């Protein structure tokens, strides 16, 4: 698992939020594709699909929030101003933490945007 509290930031913690977005994106689209391709059955109607997407979206947002909190810690809670460009371990940690925090914000919004069609979807056309 990419997310569990890590003492130090690294490329994996940086990649976690966009990876969560990508997996969420894939699950939503695969779920919708199956629901539409097999439409008509009792367990694949659009109401079920809405609940499935909600069920994928909330954990995704939760994981991104956890990743964001961890990133804030790696960033040193903003005690040090950017650009964090010194060749020290501390600046490297702050840089990775800050970049991850921004990616968390982007991924959070993206996950919401990906899930939004579930609110308005009326049929598979």
């Amino acid at each position, binding site marked *: 698992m990419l997310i569990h509290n890590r003492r130090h930031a690294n490329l994996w913690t940086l990649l976690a939020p966009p990876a969560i977005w990508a997996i969420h994106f894939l699950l939503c689209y695969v779920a919708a594709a199956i629901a539409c391709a097999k439409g008509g059955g009792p367990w694949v109607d659009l109401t079920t699909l809405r609940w499935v997407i909600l069920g994928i979206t909330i954990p995704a947002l939760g994981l991104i929030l956890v990743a964001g909190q961890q990133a804030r810690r790696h960033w040193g809670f903003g005690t040090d*101003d950017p650009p964090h460009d010194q060749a020290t371990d501390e600046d490297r940690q702050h840089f990775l933490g800050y970049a991850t925090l921004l990616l968390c*914000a982007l991924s959070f*919004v993206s996950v*919401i*945007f990906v899930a*939004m*069609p579930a*609110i*308005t*979807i*009326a*049929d598979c*056309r």
Partner: protein
Amino acid sequence: MEQRTVTGRAMRAMPLAGLLTGCGGVQSALDPAGFEAEQVARLFWAMLIASGVIWVLVLGLASYAARRRGQPWSQQGASRLIVWAGAVVPTLLLAVLLFYGLRLMPELRAPGGPLRVHVEGEQFWWRVRYHPPGGAPVESANALVLPVGQRVEFSLSTRDVIHSFWVPALGGKMDMIPGRTNRLVLEPTRTGEFRGACAELCGASHALMAFTVRVVEPAEFEAWLAREAAPAAAVEPAAQAGEAAFLANGCGACHSVRGTAARGDIGPDLTHLASRPTIGAGILENSAENRAAFIARVDQIKPSARMPAYGTLPETEIAAIAAWLGTLR
């Protein structure tokens, strides 16, 4: 001197006039004549105005920042401006736009009325088949007639390459993809003549693949459809030579003219060709000279079309065929 100034102004205004011609006419999304086109045009104007306001604000801010002297902004103030104006507000605006667009879609895709029209894209023309409720299909080509105020369901397909069916005045475009049948629902809201075009590059004559759309009152549509379903009118004696030449030269192997021996299915159905405003899929006015020119020089008028040029036929025969086609009302 005064004259020169006026001319200069007129010259400077010319590109603007050129741009504005796109705002109206038979093929403009900005001059909507259909439910979907109206919704999209409204969204377009709202976005244009909002973009204009944002543009003025941003440039105003930039100009203010450039002129400002004295104390620089605090880092905190600048960061706050970047976060709010650069991230939070654009995200909220995008969310509102996205939600508005998503909410619009089910309404635009709601099922159509009982009339269905199947349109098949061909290189480089449109095969049209009306499926009226409870009636036999009616074959036509390169010209659509639609009843005003009714949602008409189109099924769109193709057998050769990807085409795209687009009547900008009525609604959005929809691709025609080999092996798939896509659907599109259009609801014309006012009568008139419009133009559709192929919106996906499909070969040498892609730009010459258009069609006319005539939106009429429902009663007039019913009458038109009944006429379109009937076989071609009996041949006027003067045009008999044209029909004979048409059949003798094998035109019937590709074209259908119901009521004659011509039963081809490769090219456009010509049963009521004379009632269409254009020939060659919306590119030439439907006149005897243009019909004759199309028969003789189709390779130049419509490059890569499957129909060979019949310029080797005697001119009298070409003229006779063109005249006969002109009687097929």
